[in-house]
């Protein structure tokens, strides 16, 4: 069976983790944030930002809870302005 597609990640949904947005978070928060603890507003799960699920479909960045998939943070950058939506978080720090 040719599983090379799996090697290339071609069959996955493109999910990364919070390490991938380290630079974006520095831009938004002015400091290193990948070890900050994020608490999900939906299920209460707490984890370091580096361990959250990150989707980057090109239109924006969506960060989700690894336990329940709820959207925690969304970042959209248009014409040099970053729109930051943190409504899914109970806390971040």
């Amino acid at each position: 069976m040719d599983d090379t597609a799996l090697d290339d990640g071609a069959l996955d949904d493109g999910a990364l983790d919070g390490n991938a947005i380290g630079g974006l978070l520095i831009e938004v928060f002015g400091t290193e944030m990948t070890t900050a603890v994020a608490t999900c507003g939906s299920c209460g799960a707490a984890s370091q930002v580096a361990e959250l699920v990150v989707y980057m479909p090109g239109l924006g960045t969506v960060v989700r809870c690894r336990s329940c998939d709820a959207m925690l943070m969304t970042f959209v950058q248009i014409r040099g302005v970053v729109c930051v939506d943190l409504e899914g978080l109970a806390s971040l720090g």
Partner: protein
Amino acid sequence: MPPVSRGFHRKRAAAPADRIPPGQYLTRDFPVLSAGPTPRTALARWTFSIEGGHERKSWTWEEFRALPSEKLTTDIHCVTRWSKLDTRWEGVSLDVLLAGMEHDAPYALAFSDGGYTTNVPVADLLDGKAWVVFGYDGGPLGAEHGGPARLLVPHLYFWKSAKWVRGIRLLDRDQPGFWENYGYNMYGDPWREQRYAGD
């Protein structure tokens, strides 16, 4: 001006200009771009519904697949700048789905498994401009590309072609969907380069 990286340039269109909208480049891939995990709705539980009109209509998968469907070949244009030509689809026209429904609502909001939404004027769903597609490139539409069924509105930027679509809600006023809420254009015509609000 930041230092120029010698020899670096944006990907360029390598196809007839009348097929590639401004600012786009041609790709042979079909990138999988998602804002969340791929939903896995069982066909036995899948429905497509039209809400907000004078009546609510809903089809099960069997009922949906029994509707007249058609094959089409079209170009698609993503706001992330890639365009893909001659993509082949199979699906049910929105003209068929909306037929016989009394509706004077000018706007629609498509909604999907996983919570994604996007808005399209009803006029842009009618007259052979939009489908709910279940087939791609001669086979069933794969889950990563929106299967079992997605909306296809190829004359607008591809974020309007909602993956994993489960229905449309008819509205009196235009309402921003998921990306529109964050600043993407309410309409999204690639030929007028309407990527963001205010374009």
